[in-house]
């Protein structure tokens, strides 16, 4: 019976949140199309300890590829091994995250197999003769419904588009060898540097507090940071205007040329809502806008808005959230 493959992304020996999202997405596809979910996990010896967790989210089989050289990402080894697996058997589809690694890897696998790839999809459906998928394009102004024919259909799934829920089962766990000798890889990672240490990543955060020009100066970002800290598991983002001015690092930029995010809650502070920014966050489940200009475009996409001086509103919000947290 046809199966769906999920690429279980890891870094530094740990599964990333998007690994669970791809497994849950594959579970959904397999339940619709009939068949099993097979997850593939790569890493240095020891990564097998992570395999069981994938069963909790719906993997029937986890194939673990361990090799000392896979401590860091090796695009050529992973692409060759995934392509070999997908070629050999009757896979209906393969799902990757539209993360830095998934966006790098999936096109390589697709080209090796000579199959097409729908990238950065926010939804999909496995039908009998084709797969359809929704892909935001044209600065997020249009949702393109794509139709993919041929097996396997490859997808990269926008992080946050699916909320990982548990579908517990006891996964069978097997091991496999890389399809090529890692020593023969032409492209190698020579350095992996963590940045901002334990900072919560924008793609993994369920809540994002984001700041724009309305904050007036770099140092006023403490207001945004304080609010994120009061909420707890929240990440801090910024608009392009702010990162271009050097108030925040470029990697904090949310928008067309930055990160595309879909958190449960997005709080836009002093952000007018330029189309390029909206392209990066309009798929958030709930949007809150705080802005002094009642006609700012951000209020058109916001579920809840407060018009007024952010320098009064944000500290009050931070204080009220701290109070509420203490009461519980």
């Amino acid at each position, binding site marked *: 019976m046809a199966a769906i493959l999920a690429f279980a992304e890891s870094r530094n020996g740990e599964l990333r949140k998007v690994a669970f999202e791809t497994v849950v997405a594959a579970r959904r596809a397999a339940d619709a199309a009939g068949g099993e979910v097979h997850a593939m996990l790569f890493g240095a010896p020891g990564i097998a300890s992570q395999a069981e967790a994938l069963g909790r989210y719906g993997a029937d089989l986890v194939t673990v590829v361990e090799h000392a050289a896979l401590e860091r990402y090796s695009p050529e080894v992973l692409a060759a091994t995934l392509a070999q697996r997908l070629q050999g058997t009757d896979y209906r589809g393969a799902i990757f995250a539209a993360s830095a690694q998934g966006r790098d890897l999936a096109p390589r696998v697709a080209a090796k197999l000579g199959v097409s790839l729908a990238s950065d999809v926010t939804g999909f459906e496995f039908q009998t003769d084709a797969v359809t998928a929704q892909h935001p394009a044209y600065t997020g102004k249009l949702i393109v419904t794509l139709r993919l024919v041929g097996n396997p259909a490859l997808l990269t799934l926008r992080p946050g588009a699916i909320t990982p829920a548990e579908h517990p089962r006891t996964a069978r766990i097997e091991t496999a060898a890389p399809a090529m000798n890692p020593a023969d890889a032409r492209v190698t990672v020579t350095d992996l540097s963590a940045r901002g240490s334990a900072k919560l990543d924008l793609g993994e955060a369920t809540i994002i507090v984001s700041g724009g020009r309305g904050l007036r100066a770099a140092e006023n970002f403490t207001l945004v940071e304080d609010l994120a800290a009061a909420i707890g598991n929240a990440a801090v983002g910024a608009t392009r205007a702010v990162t271009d001015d050097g108030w925040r690092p470029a990697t904090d930029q949310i928008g067309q040329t930055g990160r595309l995010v879909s958190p449960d809650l997005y709080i836009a502070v002093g952000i007018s809502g330029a189309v390029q920014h909206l392209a990066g966050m309009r798929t958030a489940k709930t949007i809150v806008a705080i802005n002094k200009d009642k006609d700012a475009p951000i209020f058109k996409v916001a579920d809840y808005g407060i018009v007024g001086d952010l320098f009064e509103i944000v500290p009050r*919000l931070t204080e009220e959230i701290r109070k509420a947290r203490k009461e519980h």
Partner: protein
Amino acid sequence: MEMRFSLSGDGKSLDQGGLKYEIGDFDGYALEVGLQLVEKYGGEVVVISIGPDGVQETLRKGLAMGAARAVQLKADVVPFDGLAIARALSAELKDGGYDLVLFGRVATDTANGTVGPMTAELLDLPCVTSISELEILDGQGRARRELEGSAETMQFPLPAVLTIDEGIARPRLASLKGIMAAKKKPLEVKPAQLGEARLTVESMALPPERPPGRIVGEGADAVPELLRLLQTEAKVL
């Protein structure tokens, strides 16, 4: 870049009337990287584009910025399928003669980001995607790419395929002299060997309207009500 457009009657494509083609944001960075490398090490930059004759204007802009020559792989319609585009490019590039093939990390319009690594795979060339720093020394390259919350440095031999992220180079403006010179530079037109597209557009639609939001209130006094809505209605806090 601000984009204004309308959907055509079939609901699968854009109305071409009034559409203006430009070099995509990331493609501009890629071109600038190429021009800077040529200034440093010699050689030439060739710009390639796939599409109808409208892309010639874009190619001329590349020539005006400093590319030596241009190639249009002619296709009436550019397919959405990245693999079809990669096939046409790899057919054009299969005989080598270059050190680097540079792409923008993602097209501003279709937002797929797949053609670069697919072309690399079809040409069997090393590939690093989405790079924000680049060093070339003695036939070897070193590039940095940003990940979520970290960055990795990759080493690779030339020739190679790279896709370029923001932050590496700001595209130069064409000088008047460059614009004049561009008119005389060679622009070759060949048919694009796209092959069969197996990823097609079924429909295009405006994003679902977000349910109309509401202004909770004005000023800091509205904060308690906002908090109540986030907790009890949206249930996100």
